[in-house]
């Protein structure tokens, strides 16, 4: 689905040039749930922005669903983004003045979906993230977990091929985090490709593949299954507390 070939992206500050992505090669296949790990400032967010076509690249080739994104104009990228990608942010980025359902309806409105159809899709997705009872509320009246569920609803209401999540649980407590992660996992199992940046190694088990970044390069790229194999002697069922704790410990060792 996504192919990076020698991608580079750097930022020029007042005095120094910071290389955020350094000649990176990466392929993401359809149906994957990819977690990106790495220390602060290792370019996780930049990578996600490039993937979401919110940011441009300096050099290299970037193809998305066979489209040569690196050759596209800002407008063409915007069109591609609109058609195929949904975003979930750490701080939800809901629009304060709009109600829950209006927030969710917004991308459909920008996709020129007819009103009746919009209502149908919003109803469905509200049910899907289990927030129907709060549909008329403003975001400020919701808890963090509820807000993130609304944000996820907004991201998936257009049925995107790719969901990009930037630390979706960063502002949530563990109970809400689990709910959100399970929701993402479910979406992935239903066919959505997900790329998630996370600071919480324990969440990688909801995904299928994990990469670790350092100084703009991929330093480790494994299937979640393999990764767990490396560090523990047995394959475990995700779900039991004991196992999760084990994985947490493993992940902490792995990611520092």
């Amino acid at each position, binding site marked *: 689905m996504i192919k990076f070939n020698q991608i580079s992206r750097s930022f020029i500050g007042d005095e120094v040039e910071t290389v955020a992505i350094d000649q990176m090669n990466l392929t993401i296949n359809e149906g994957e749930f990819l977690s990106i790990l790495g220390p602060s400032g290792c370019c996780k967010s930049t990578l996600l*922005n490039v993937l979401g076509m919110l940011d441009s690249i300096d050099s290299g080739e970037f193809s998305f669903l066979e489209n040569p994104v690196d050759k596209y104009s800002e407008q063409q990228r*915007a069109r591609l*983004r609109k058609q195929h990608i949904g975003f979930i942010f750490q701080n939800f*980025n809901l*629009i304060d003045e709009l109600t829950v359902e209006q927030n969710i309806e917004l991308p459909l409105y*920008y996709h020129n979906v007819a009103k009746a159809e919009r209502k149908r899709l919003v109803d469905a997705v509200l049910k899907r993230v289990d927030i129907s009872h709060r549909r008329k509320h403003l975001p400020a009246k919701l808890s963090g977990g509820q807000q993130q569920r609304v944000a996820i609803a907004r991201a998936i209401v*257009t049925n995107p091929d790719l969901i990009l999540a930037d630390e979706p649980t960063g502002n949530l407590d563990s109970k809400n985090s689990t709910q959100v992660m399970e929701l993402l996992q479910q979406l992935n199992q239903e066919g959505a490709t997900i790329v998630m940046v996370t600071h919480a190694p324990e969440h990688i088990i909801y995904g299928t593949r994990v990469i670790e970044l350092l100084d703009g390069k991929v330093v480790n790229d494994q299937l979640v299954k393999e990764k767990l194999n490396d560090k523990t002697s047995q394959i475990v069922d995700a779900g039991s507390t004991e196992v999760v704790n084990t994985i947490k410990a493993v992940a902490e060792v792995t990611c520092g």
Partner: protein
Amino acid sequence: MGKLLFIVAWRNFCRDKLTSFIQLTGLIIGIASFILIQFYVDHQKSYNTAFTDAKDIYRINLIRGENKPQAQTPLRLAKELTQNFTEVEDATRISPSSVSVKHLQGVYSERALYADANYLDFFDFQLIEGDVNTALDAPDSLLLHQDLAIKYFSTTVGVIGKRLTINGKEHQVTGVVKKPTTPTTMPLTMILPMENFYGQLSQEWIEAWNFNATRTYTKIRQPANINTLIQTVSDYYDSRAKGLSSFKTNRVIIQPLLDIYLDNTTTSSLTPPSSEVMVTVFSIISFMILLLACVNFTNLSTAAAMSRGKDVGVRKALGASKIQLVTQYLSEAVMLSALACMLALVLVYLCLPAFNQLMTAEMVFNVSIAQLLQLLALTLLVGVLAGSYPAFYLSNLSPAHVLKGLVSTSKSGVLLRQSLIILQFAIAAFLLVASLVVNWQMQYIKNMEQGFNREGVIVVSRGDNTYNAFKSQALRHPDITSVTMSHTVPTKATRTSNTVRRLDDITNEIWVGNNPVSLDFFKTYGIKVLSGRIFSKAYVNDAYKENKDDWQSSIGKLVINQTLAATLGWSPEEAVGQLLTLGGGQDGLHNHQIIGVVEDSHYVNVKNTVAPMTYVLSAEPKDLSLRWTSIRFKVGTSLQSLKEVEQIWLGLAPNLAFKYDWITDLFDSSYRNENQQTEMLNVFTLLAIVVTAIGLFGLAAFNTQRRVKEIAVRKILGASTGQLCFMLVNQFSSLVIISNVIALPLAYFLMRDWLDNFIYRIDMPYSAFILSAVFSLVIAYITVMVIAYRAATAKPVDSLHCE
């Protein structure tokens, strides 16, 4: 502490450069406009104030019958007043006239004032040379304005005793008048002793109570009794003037000298008057623009205050009292307004020459101590007016709240800003409608049918002695199509002291203007004949001649205008052949036949209604004292032809200056004040719109900045640039529409009243209201679009970064 105040103010000013810049620009434009308009208003009100006795000097105006007040009075009035009314301490008379000045080889036409010897006691102009006490004593005295001294003698000093021949009589310069710095309604020209004016008149006219040929000014020391005085002088005048003319009533008005310039009702003033209404209107506009600028300031300050909320929180937490905070913010506002005031002064200084040119005034930029104090007061006023809301608003914030960043949700702040925007756009929309209506009305007046063809005609004063020879020679010139002479010409006043009556309704007097003309008058002015015929050489009885011994045997035919025909109750066709009775008052009655009806033409200008008119034929120019020679040229005549005509003229009358005016120029100059004031209205309407737009720009920038994250999110969700721009722009639409809803009805009523003052007026142009609404929306859209486009095309990732 003061230093700290200043430093903090300066840093805040620099912190948000765009907002500060916009605040400053708005204030500068606002204050500069205010000062400029106040200059103009002061200038208009300063006419005649430089004369020492200005407060005690009054002009005597007459109201005869239903006519407008007139400044022309009988020559004997001044003496009658000083002799019979103890309140009248002194009186002086001024009669303007055009004279021919012969100097070296040239003959020049000048406007002269014939004045009594005490002229300089009333109007104490400064003399560069000469003695104010004796300057007009000798019959051949001559007071020259300094410009004329330079014109004739190339210097303003050492000209005493030099000679000029004026109307054939030698005069000796006895004084040179210095150009005053304060404007005056006294024409700045040459002044001659009154007896030279008498010399041109018969004793009968000098003594007449109904021959009005001079302006009378009086000094009255007890203004408290002015109404009683008006009453007694009116009675005195009425008892003497009654019966001499057909006017039923004869009254006087005693008008303060200081009111003369702004009185545009009284006719035949020495200087074209301005309009008090317009001066008041401009005063109001100046305050409106100042208010707009203050509103901008307040609006942007409260908006910017949100980003300063934290500052307040910290200061309060550190123990600053409310008073200290208010002082801080208020002094910042005052400092900014002081800066704006200084820059505005510079701007005024730079703009004044252009403004003077626009208004053909000579306002000078000299700021007196009093004005400096006023300016200081203005600075304080603007600073406090504009700064108090933000100051009190900010200092009232609860530190706990602002430190959490909750300022931005203040509903009352949003409401205030929105109301202020509404106020601004209401003012702008109002001015816009007013400008449009005024412009259209003026356009209409200037372009409306005048009933005569004003292109290609020149008028020359006098020439009655040589008229016949001149006419026959001039008509040989290939570029000249016709020549005529008349008592008055279109664009100049006509005397309206005659009456006519229908034979079958002899008691019903109709007031008419009468214009004695020679042959070819209607041809020269292109006045159309509606029925019958006009005067012709072929009919010997056309020429008008009164027989004072036997009134019944007076002869002559009449041509009348359409209005008179209608007033008499006849159609143009019916009127031809009818007899009218003329005369009345001292004169006996005499009948004359109407031979033709011509279309109405505007004498003076369309500010006055067309009077019923009679035209009579003067066989020789002298018979009915014709005053103006009119010459019609072919289209596209050259300056050379004019020179050739001048040669013909001077060949016949070497002592009579050939001073000509194009009728088109006279026509235009009769609207000079209106044109200037219309232009001034346009300029300041534009400035008001600019100030409003600047304010909106600032607020839009601020609002957009606040919503930058939201814009990014919407963009990521697929919003197009167009959709985002529309969203950002549209937030102001309803405000602009509300302001129009408020302003337009007000504008409607005021403009309706204004238009009602005109005799010839346009219908209320509703399109002006639509245009104003559309225009204010467009202005708002364009202004906000600049900001919106930038925000909507920014890369969304940048906005999301700035967490």
